[in-house]
């Protein structure tokens, strides 16, 4: 039996859905572990509500004395570090989102503990994780030899399983000394409140043949019908059809949605490096010999400009 902390990532005060899978991973096969949800921000009551169906035992909102957590990434890491020690955690898990992997790397460096980032599975009892090596071409099993296991999980890699427990709220105040090394000057919010690609459960991606930024509207309509997000290949980003924040792959985002629809993508190794662990992969391509058809689950041989609108139509028909 272990006491496991889970750093809960919030967005606009709300608990992100991708956290639920991390909780399932932390619970372990037999559900024998005690799970504490650690909050650096957001409302404890909202977290209590959101997390109750997934088996967390306590909600621990952290109050940091002596530092401004919004202004300093180091202060956030040190607040978590203090909680790890005060709560005598055996492991701390969280999401390997952009903020998450930064937070865990700072924490691991500060605590001088080993860290496994972007894991696709974790076994706390055995202190092992599985994660990608070599751009998704191999899977490494890693054993961590440390008093506290630190592990950041790829969003959506572990499917959330319900396990109802009514968690109690147990606030914790920690003293934090911010080294004052890095300061946040400004946050520029992207408009539209779009789901971050890395956390989307469904993604539809357009490659080079999309031809213009305007044409992404076809994919956006389909994404809306699916409740998903839109991605792009590097070829499309480099051609100026989409911003880099939409790029999936080796030099873009790593995603692991339950459904990935690739429209007009050849299936390059570098693109697959970023989406190979998706649950179901569908390709739409005009070329029946396109390499992508060898690497996905379902294929439609056809022109994306024709097939995608029909897919949208089929999705909206009851």
């Amino acid at each position, binding site marked *: 039996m272990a006491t496991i902390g889970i750093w809960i990532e919030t967005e606009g005060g709300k608990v992100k859905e991708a956290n639920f899978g991390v909780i399932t991973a932390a619970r372990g096969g037999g559900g024998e572990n005690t799970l504490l949800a650690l909050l650096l921000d957001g409302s404890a009551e909202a977290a209590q509500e959101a997390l109750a169906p997934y088996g967390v035992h306590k909600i621990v909102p952290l109050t940091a004395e002596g530092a401004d957590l919004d202004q300093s990434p180091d202060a956030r890491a040190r607040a978590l570090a203090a909680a790890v020690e005060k709560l005598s955690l055996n492991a701390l898990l969280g999401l390997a989102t952009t903020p998450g992997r930064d937070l865990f790397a700072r924490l691991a460096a500060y605590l001088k503990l080993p860290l496994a980032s972007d894991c696709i599975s974790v076994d706390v009892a055995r202190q092992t994780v599985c994660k990608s090596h070599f751009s998704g071409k*191999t899977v490494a099993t890693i054993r961590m030899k440390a008093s506290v296991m630190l592990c950041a999980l790829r969003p959506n890699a572990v499917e959330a399983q319900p396990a109802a427990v009514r968690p109690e709220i147990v606030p914790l105040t920690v003293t934090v000394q911010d080294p004052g090394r890095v*300061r946040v000057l400004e946050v520029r919010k992207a408009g539209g409140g779009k789901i971050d690609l890395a956390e989307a459960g469904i993604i539809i991606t357009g490659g080079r043949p999309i031809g213009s930024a305007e044409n992404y509207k076809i994919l956006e309509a389909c994404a809306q019908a699916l409740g998903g997000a839109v991605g792009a290949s590097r070829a499309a980003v480099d051609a100026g059809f989409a911003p880099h924040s939409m790029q999936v792959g080796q030099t873009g985002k790593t995603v692991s949605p339950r459904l990935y629809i690739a429209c007009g993508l050849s299936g390059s190794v570098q693109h697959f490096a970023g989406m190979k662990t998706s649950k179901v992969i569908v390709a739409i391509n005009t070329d029946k010999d396109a390499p992508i058809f060898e690497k996905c689950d379902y294929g439609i041989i056809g022109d994306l400009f024709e097939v995608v609108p029909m897919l949208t139509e089929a999705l909206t028909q009851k």
Partner: protein
Amino acid sequence: MKIYVCVKHVPDTAANIKTAGANGFDDAVCKFIANPYDEYAVEQAVRLMESQGGEVVVVSVGKEAAMATLRSAMAMGATRGILVTVESQFLDSEITSQALKAAIEKDGKPDLIFTGKVAVDTEGFQTAYRLAEAMSLPVVNEILKMELRDGKAVVEREIGGGSREVLEAGLPCVLGATKGLNEPRYPKFPDIMKAKKKEVKQMTLADLGLSAAAARIELVKLEKAPDRSGAKIIPGPSREAAQALVHILRNVEKVI
């Protein structure tokens, strides 16, 4: 300015990885390159040197073959190199960062240290942070933009959903580069020839008083990632195929 850039010699992202034994791979049969993110780091450092003077020292912890990556960074304009030789491609990042720190401190006083955002072989995402913490320096990773202002680095990074954050870090600091920061140059033939003559200091882990045996991460197994067996092609004209796909996704795969 004295700028250090940490670079790693890694298998080409397009290379086929042949696993060997329980936890190894055959590095003799795969092409190696400079870690792609490190090229953005080298480019940024060289541009700063070109505008402000000083030198760029590239540092690598790796096998002997990593010399090729140092040479390619020097062909891009780095002044000289340092190679800390190790026996394995899979050195614990705690030890890597200690080796980088020791090698840099032995060589000089940095004004700035660059790394790539992540090494694409082990995808560890932590060496830059450990290096910075060990040297008590600020660190910001995944930077897309930077400028120097009043002895500080002002940098920008993406924080998800297309939102960005602007941060300030005093110099010296450690900055991790990602795609978008710049367009790395392609070295010309004369630059490649010149790079062959540039100085590279070489040392071992033991020379720095370190040992790989202290690792707290053990690579137990390295396996080929499961491949899909190939697509089930949904036949028919576009409309029928689209409808059939929706049916499958809803009722068979249950993902929508």
